[in-house]
């Protein structure tokens, strides 16, 4: 998958280490009440995020009673849909809407959940994990789903209060609080996540400036033409943009007050949201001596170099790629769940991926290799007045990439053809005009 570890919004993760602000702990030793007859093998899951829990769900589908399962999560919540933090911030969704697995779900499945209690060490020799609260748990199988950490640009002032990432419910709460009492927000990073954060803050009534180091927004997902349309549309909504802007310093004494750039200019800031990318969260794995490169290296079965330990999600590296979108991680969860269940015939295969920006009123879809390059050909359609831009990248008889702006309804159809390597030679002249027409013609 190209650009795996980028700024994609659709992040999954297990727990990640936060330097501060960990709230109340939530222990749910629900399974303790259940008398165990014969001792079942123990599965420890580090990370109560989307990747870890989806893997557990896949496992339970195949082998509901195989393991004693214990889950450690850093955040003091149940498992929630991190992708929906943007709608949560924007006010389109409530907390209830974004929760995935309720406490009852854990209880029903006999899973022990330690929420708000991150794992601090793994002893592979003794097959024991140790939590910050001092829980030691022996495992037969271990699943690492530690996710990723936001990248905080280490400019002077980056540790000032009011400088945050956009990663979890805590961040959303910080932003909502800031919006109630402050006016100026600066979002550093004009990628998918940054724009969704900026949009949310705007919806909460703040003056928002998006600062981007590149000359074009969402350059990992969009070509320049689409980026220009996007910028125009977001400007009309009220966002301001500073492109080619290199942040030099975050200014403030007690609290952030401004952002200064390398050219010396300054803009006021009561809140700075860093959305400049993420890093796979692999500290724990490295401490345990697991083989890591950019992330925890896994094979096609999602097994690490230690046969008892599996890893899924944003913390893994598979065949040189790392991951940030939800779709490949669902695939990983399916494969990993099967292997944990002992039904180990599945192999994880990387597929092209597609993304959509979740900003109300902005329709944007990109999939596959939309940059193209040597040997690729472009089909382009522009209708700026209607705010429509579509581009398909073709290689030989196949679509390899798509960027759709304004009219995205055919996105999944193109994506299907990208993944299916459909021969489009006969459709080429009508392809960009959509599935309905091509179906008509066929």
């Amino acid at each position, binding site marked *: 998958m190209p650009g795996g570890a980028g700024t994609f919004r659709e992040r999954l993760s297990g727990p990640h280490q936060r330097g501060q602000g960990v709230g109340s702990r939530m222990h749910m030793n629900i399974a303790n009440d259940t008398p165990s007859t014969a001792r079942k093998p123990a599965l420890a899951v580090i990370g109560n995020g989307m990747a870890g829990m989806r893997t557990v769900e896949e496992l339970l589908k195949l082998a509901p009673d195989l393991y004693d399962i214990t889950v450690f999560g850093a955040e003091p919540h149940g498992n929630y*849909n991190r992708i929906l933090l943007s709608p949560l911030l924007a006010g389109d969704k409530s907390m209830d809407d974004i929760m995935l697995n309720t406490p009852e779900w854990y209880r029903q499945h006999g899973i022990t959940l330690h929420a708000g209690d991150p794992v601090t060490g793994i002893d592979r020799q003794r097959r024991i994990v140790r939590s910050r609260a001092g829980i030691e748990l022996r495992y037969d199988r271990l699943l690492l789903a530690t996710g990723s950490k936001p990248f905080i640009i280490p400019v002077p002032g980056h540790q000032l209060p009011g400088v945050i990432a956009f990663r979890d419910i805590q961040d959303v709460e910080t932003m909502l609080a800031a919006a109630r009492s402050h006016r100026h927000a600066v979002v550093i990073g004009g990628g998918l996540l940054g724009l969704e954060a900026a949009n949310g803050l705007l919806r909460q009534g703040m003056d928002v400036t998006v600062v981007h180091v590149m000359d074009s927004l969402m350059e990992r997902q969009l070509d320049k033409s689409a980026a220009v349309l996007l910028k125009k549309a977001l400007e009309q909504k009220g966002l301001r943009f500073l492109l080619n802007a290199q942040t030099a310093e975050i200014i403030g004494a007690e609290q952030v007050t401004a952002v200064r750039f390398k050219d010396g200019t300054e803009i006021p800031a009561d809140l700075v949201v860093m959305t400049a990318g993420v890093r796979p969260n692999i500290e724990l794995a490295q401490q345990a001596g697991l083989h890591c490169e950019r992330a925890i290296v896994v094979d096609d079965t999602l097994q690490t170099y230690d046969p008892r330990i599996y890893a899924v999600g944003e913390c893994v590296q598979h065949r040189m790629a790392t991951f940030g979108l939800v779709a490949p991680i669902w695939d990983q969860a399916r494969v990993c769940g099967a292997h944990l269940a002992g039904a180990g015939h599945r192999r994880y295969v990387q597929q092209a991926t597609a993304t959509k920006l979740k900003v109300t009123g902005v329709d944007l879809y990109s999939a596959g290799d939309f940059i193209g390059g040597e040997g690729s050909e472009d089909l382009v359609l522009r209708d700026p*007045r209607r705010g429509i831009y579509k581009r398909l990248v073709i290689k030989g008889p196949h679509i390899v990439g798509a960027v759709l702006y304004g009219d995205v309804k055919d996105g*999944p159809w193109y994506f299907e053809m990208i993944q299916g390597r459909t021969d489009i030679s006969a459709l080429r*002249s009508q392809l960009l*005009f959509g599935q309905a027409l091509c179906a008509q013609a066929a």
Partner: protein
Amino acid sequence: MDPVPTFPLLAASQLAGTLTTCPYCGVGCGVRATVRGDGQVDIAGDETHASNAGRLCVKGSALGETVDLDGRLLHPQMRARHGDALQRVSWDAALDKVALGFRSVIEQHGPDAVALYVSGQLLTEDYYIANKLMKGYIGSANIDTNSRLCMSSAVAGHKRAFGADLVPLCYEDLELADLVVLVGSNTAWCHPILFQRIARIRETRPQMKLVVIDPRRTATCELADLHLPLKAGSDVWLFNGLLSFLARHDAADGSFIEAHTNGLEAALETAEAECADLAAVAKTCKLDPQDLLTFYEWFAANEKVVTAFSQGVNQSSSGTDKVNSIINCHLLTGRIGKEGMGPFSITGQPNAMGGREVGGMANMLAAHMDLDNPRHRQTVQDFWQAPRMAQRPGLKALDLFQAIEAGQVKAVWIIATNPVVSLPDADQVQRALAKCELVVMSDIIEKTDTGAFAHVVLPALGWGEKDGTVTSSERRISRQRAFLPAPGEARADWQILCQVAQRMGYAGFDFSAAHQVFDEHARLSSFRNGDAFGQRRVFNLAGLSGLDQAAFDALQPVQWPVVATSAGEKQGTARLFADGRFAHADGKARFIATAPRAPQHAADSDYPLSLNTGRVRDQWHTMTRTGKSPKLADHVPESFVDMHPQDALLYGVREGALARVSSRWGSMVARVQHGGGIARGSIFVPIHWNGQSASDARVGALVNPVVDPVSGEPEFKHTPVLVEEFRVAWYGFVLSRGRPVLDDVTHWTRIQGRRFNRYELAGRSPIADHGAWAADLLGVAIADADWLEYQDASAGIYRAVHVVDDRIEACLFLSPRPDLPSRAWLAGLFVKEQLEDADRIGLLLGQPIAKGADTGPTVCSCFSVGRNTICDAARKQGLTTVAQVTACLKAGGNCGSCVPEIKKLLTEISIVEVV
């Protein structure tokens, strides 16, 4: 089948407006024109007119679309030198310039150094004045006409056979005949109303036979019992063979021949020399001998036979002989002068006949009198009181332009015709006009190919504005009446001619209305006409003399000769020669010995194909009028090279692509088509397109400057040519409300649409930046414009649409192949004041995109699954959980944002189901 649309009769309640005559072909249909309050002109057939009884062809019925003032010449203009821009001047200045220019050339170089080149589209009154000025006052016969190009062979044939240019029969004879033979005539397209009369009568008389003799399988053949696709130019063999066959099969009318003809022996001897053997004739004509025999037998067996012929006969280096070879067969069988029989020349222009009547050709005088007849000259001179009579024939069309190039003719006045397009070797015409000291042009159109060479251009009245008479192919004189005011400063052609004549100091041009001119013409026709004067002339309008304005306005269509009955009524004449008396001095008709000759230039290895030219159904001449009608543009929008598919393969051209056609005289470019009607070895190219309508489609430039030795009519139907691929980098089209800048376009054709101009384009140089190129071409500043684009760069496909205020302004489609989308739907958008959303979506495709099923508002945006889709699936397949919906529709299976909404939908459905 009915290949030609005609239009229904009007209900009596709709009758109103002005009765006039159609300005197109020689059928001379009556037209009823009504000017509406908004200035639009409604056109209907005149149900009282004998030619068409209320019916009109598609060209005639579209006349209302051709009378607007777009492109009209409205003021006199002059330029100092060739190449300078034309400047508007007063009528006085322009008329003085013409009069002085002509007078000074005449004074220095004599009367034969000036010339008039006029047109079968002039009214008889215009023609009469032009001829009078030239032959009676300037004293030269250097007045010729574009009628030279279409029916001078018929004139010459008539004169040789009958002693005068006399068409013996009338349209009704086509309906009374048992056998109609159409020779070299695509009647269905070129004379549609006549063809419809034949088609209708055959419904009631199915035994009536129709034979079409034409190298092409034209639309006319659809109705034929027999089509003889003879080798181009072999007509004389065919009719000599017929003459021989008739003589040998006892079909000759001995008593008629004896009493009323001369010269049979020589004619028959000549015919028998080569054509006595039917098999040999069939071989020469490349016909199936059995088909040929069938035709000969039918001809022999049917007393009532009409042989109608047009340009396929006339436009030939042996055109006059072809005409006479046809007439010979009618004389041999005595089938002339009676109902339902005779040789019938069908003319191509509205007033070719009227022009002939006033003598508007270089070898005629006036009122069917001959220049080389001293008695006739004296008659005309006395009548005109002419100061200086022309004494000998003048220069015929091709000779005239040769003489201009040679510097012998130094001033020419071209009226109502476009010789740079229509003459053979048309590039020579350009060279001649470029050298000419004074070129004067009277026209109704500002920009024509010929006008580019004019020093003085004079605005004339067009159809609907001018007033006078025309004569149809059956000798029927009809009024063209004005129903529109004169636009700008335009004047009637006769009036302009008179004003110049007066400025040149000539008396005899003091007319103030068209009826006065007509009256003089009518009186001349009967002046000293009769045995008492030793000149009995058939052309006689004695019955139409003395018409005042009111009587002229009330004139009903009538066939000449016209006598006044004792009751004072005007009585016309349906048929001539009923009494067996012809116009030669001895009263007899003459057989003419016609030794067959092949076309002058044979195809050879350099120019292996023979070019045939002609009209298409919905255009007329050089399109200055029909080109304005969007309705007429639909049928054949651009010029083409029709050829046999095997020839196309042989010469490396492809249907739909462009080809260069070249001869020893010039070249042109047009689109290849396989109409299915062309034999191998031949091609067909239409005559209409010109420098105003296309970049390089003047077929006249190719046509060999070869003429019939008797008639001077050019051989338009046979020029050796070569067809080659015209390789281009791209094809395209533009539809635009404006006029694009075509400087960089190698090949273009302009087509009139309803509220837009259509351009078919092709280019040789590849386009680097399509967007910028398109913006330049259409004159659009893209940055601020509502500008839609589609591009498949590596395939070379580019499309752009310019929308202004939600109205389509222009669109451009390009492709490396001629496989462009249909223009029809896009064209229809130009009449819309506002594009609908549905239209807009289809713009870049060039076709409407039907809406898919309504899937409802999007619920799952990752997989674009709509609410209706989810609800339908849930109901039909009984889905109750999100997981089931995801398994079925994928919805909710990616980011999960829509899972709450899907849950809600499922709940709603289950509630509804329960209720």
